[in-house]
């Protein structure tokens, strides 16, 4: 058997170019996605540290006090948002871990459409290059990631920067739509015999819900982007009030995509955390069906709450009342998830490996970000909180940090399976503490800045906000050390001689990926595992 496998692998030693540029293997494509995500994280991270350096003290220190300098600051804010959302979190969660582990977990030999998988990845790279181009021409797009017209229209952003930004999102969006179709088809049609939909691991559930959100939300963004593009270049006036258009229409289109987008980012994180909490508590997930359908419910409700990003546009008050009520509903399924994770740990036999530490930190940060979300759901409270640092703190906790912590958790959890090596334990723990303490020092004071009324997206601020901003910037420095340490961890892991066995985590790790060797061989599940009558695979 061993001989046969080794022999089989011999047929698959493509050269470097064929392997990495023409790849159709879900594992290699997953790896490519993870590397692109890490590279983009460096770019997006450098932008945020530039912002924090500028904001460390009142006054303008690192940008010039003229239109170019302030435009550059707005470009940093815009670029940081775009890169983190579209080129860091989504590629790592869906493209990276999704590609690697969905086929492994459902017992499929590969994704349903391997070549489409390849084009999804390369479209993402093209989108990233277009975005970087946008930042370097004609002053860059200083519109924020929300690209609201008229600021993003040809009158106020002449030059090609915004057009390149639009094309970047178009291409990245096409990449995601293709990826989403691939996941839906794979999950619906390629599960091992006996793995019914109600026996899929929760990570697979998470990717399935996410894929549907992508499929339904991204075309709306694409439509809006096309209208903006024709407004800018071909004389249409969808968003131009002087010719009968309406700038608020853009906000509806953008947030109809934009709100599901934040769940696209966080639902795969839910999946990763569910796997990890179950594995290290050595218990199946508590309330499996409730967990799965909580994600589905979040996905569905996520499509009817978009205007809570737009409370200040001058809505009819009844409309705001509806969106307040609908938004608060989301707290219920998210509460179910939090409590189910706690109940999974309850009665367990918890092993505090690094992925589990990250999962616990995730739960804490997600709860903090979640409760401030309840405040922001209220259109009345929004009269003081809209566009302040309170919002910045909220969404960084709930989707930024929580997502990044889940990505770290997933990386430590699965790197043994992906590389066959063990990460350096001590260094990983140090990295964990630097990062988690750093991000809390960075973002917690921003709640107070926001309560005091500090608006977001400003390069300078009244002196009263100086103390909290200084603390935030110190936190950014600690986070930067944690980030650097992560790259040291990657290097030490790949340089390590310590290999791991097929099931690195022992009795708690029950999903199918732990039944194949580490590192996962080139081809897996060539003979479909029979899951008939087995317990739910969570």
């Amino acid at each position: 058997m061993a001989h046969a496998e080794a022999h089989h692998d011999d047929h698959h030693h493509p050269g470097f170019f064929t392997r990495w540029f023409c790849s159709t293997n879900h594992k290699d494509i997953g790896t490519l996605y993870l590397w692109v995500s890490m590279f983009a994280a460096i770019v997006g991270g450098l932008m945020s540290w530039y912002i924090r350096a500028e904001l460390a003290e009142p006054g303008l220190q690192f940008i010039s006090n003229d239109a170019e300098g302030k435009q550059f600051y707005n470009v940093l804010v815009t670029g940081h948002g775009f890169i983190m959302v579209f080129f860091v979190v989504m590629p790592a969660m869906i493209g990276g871990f999704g590609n690697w582990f969905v086929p492994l977990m459902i017992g499929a030999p590969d994704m349903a459409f391997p070549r489409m998988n390849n084009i999804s990845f390369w479209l993402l790279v093209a989108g990233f290059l277009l975005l970087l181009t946008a930042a370097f021409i004609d002053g860059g797009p200083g519109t924020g990631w929300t690209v609201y017209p008229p600021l993003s229209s040809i009158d106020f952003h002449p030059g090609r920067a915004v057009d390149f930004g639009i094309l970047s999102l178009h291409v990245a969006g096409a990449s995601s739509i293709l990826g989403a179709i691939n996941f839906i088809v794979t999950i619906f049609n390629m599960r091992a015999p006996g793995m019914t939909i109600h026996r899929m691991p929760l990570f697979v559930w998470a990717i399935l819900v996410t894929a549907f959100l992508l499929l339904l939300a991204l075309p709306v963004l694409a439509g809006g982007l096309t209208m903006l593009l024709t407004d800018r270049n071909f004389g249409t006036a969808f968003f131009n009030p002087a010719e009968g258009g309406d700038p608020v229409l853009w906000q509806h289109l953008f947030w109809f995509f934009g709100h599901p987008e934040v769940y696209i980012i966080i639902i795969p994180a839910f999946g990763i955390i569910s796997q990890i909490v179950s594995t290290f508590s050595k218990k199946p997930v508590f309330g499996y069906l409730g967990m799965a359908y909580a994600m589905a419910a979040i996905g569905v409700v996520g499509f009817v709450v978009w205007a809570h990003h737009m409370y200040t546009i001058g809505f009819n008050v009844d409309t705001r009342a509806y969106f307040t009520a609908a938004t608060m509903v989301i707290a219920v399924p998210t509460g179910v998830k939090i409590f189910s994770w706690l109940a999974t740990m309850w009665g367990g036999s918890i092993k505090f490996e690094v992925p589990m530490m990250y999962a616990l930190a995730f739960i804490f940060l997600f709860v903090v970000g979640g409760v401030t979300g309840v405040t922001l759901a209220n259109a009345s409270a929004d009269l003081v909180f809209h566009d302040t640092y309170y919002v910045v703190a909220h969404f960084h906790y709930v989707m930024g940090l929580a997502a990044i912590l889940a990505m770290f958790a997933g990386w430590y959890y699965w790197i043994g399976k992906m590389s066959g090596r063990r990460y350096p334990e001590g260094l990983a723990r140090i990295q964990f503490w630097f990062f988690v303490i750093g991000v809390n020092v960075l973002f917690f004071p921003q709640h107070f800045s926001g309560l005091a009324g500090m608006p977001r997206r400003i390069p300078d601020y009244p002196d009263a906000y100086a103390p909290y901003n200084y603390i935030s910037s110190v936190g950014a420095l600690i986070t930067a050390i944690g980030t650097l340490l992560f790259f040291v961890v990657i290097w030490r892991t790949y340089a390590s001689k310590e290999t791991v066995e097929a099931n690195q985590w022992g009795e708690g790790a029950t999903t199918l990926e732990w039944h194949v060797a580490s590192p996962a061989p080139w081809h897996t599940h060539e003979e479909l595992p029979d899951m008939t009558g087995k317990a739910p695979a969570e």
Partner: protein
Amino acid sequence: MLKRLFTLVPAAVAAMFSGAGAALAEGVVAKSKPWQMWLQEPMSPSAEMVHDLNVLLMWIEVAIVIFVLAIMAYVMVRFSEKNNPTPSKTTHNTMLEVAWTAIPILILVGIAIPSLKTLYFADHTPDAEMTLKVKGNQWYWSYGYPDHGDFEFDSVYVPEEELKPGQPRLLTVDTPVVLPVDTNIRLLLTSNDVIHNWAIPSLAVKLDTTPGRTNETWTRINQPGDYYGMCSELCGVNHGFMPIHIKAVSKEDFAKWVAGAKEEYASNDTDKQPVRLAKAQVR
């Protein structure tokens, strides 16, 4: 920088204890203070309601975070590998699952009632005593008084190097907008170019100024004084440099000011926007 922090701490402490007494002499100064950990003091009926709502929300939220943290801490100790070597296999408890779905719903309904009351109260006033028109421009505000002879003027940011002693950095304008206290003021907001947002935290007013639309809200200022706010919607390179300054005065003083202002601004041709250096820079 540390030196700056050390000087700010005593200043903040002094500000906390000096309180209203000192401020009342010349009216309140409604802007944020160093180390402030809470909302700015509410200075309008709407702001008071928003303030109370936020107190309620904050207590509920702090309680939830502590509750979850306490469970996490207990679980981490009690059910660690060392203290509980054999895991249980429990995966369902219907009562528990119903409880943690139903109780949050009840809490949310409890929040929604005061929240929606506040929302409807703050939305508009049926009996406005006067109207203020607010127009956003890149990057200054124009104000108009349609009920007092329809004069208009611009309120332009004063850069740091031109500040007089005592004027706050980034919050000072050349001409503050003057409003009477204890008056229901209807606010009509629009924009000449991109979307801006006219926001005064201490009055709980925050509404977009959108080209092609007129948005309406209202306020009623409780006390004379200086009220500060900043543009709250990204509007281009000088977004951080278009502050709002309201000078709230007694009704008598307001009448006097209106008489003078009519003289001063009536000659302004309101249809023509004055050419601003700031505006010239960007095009």
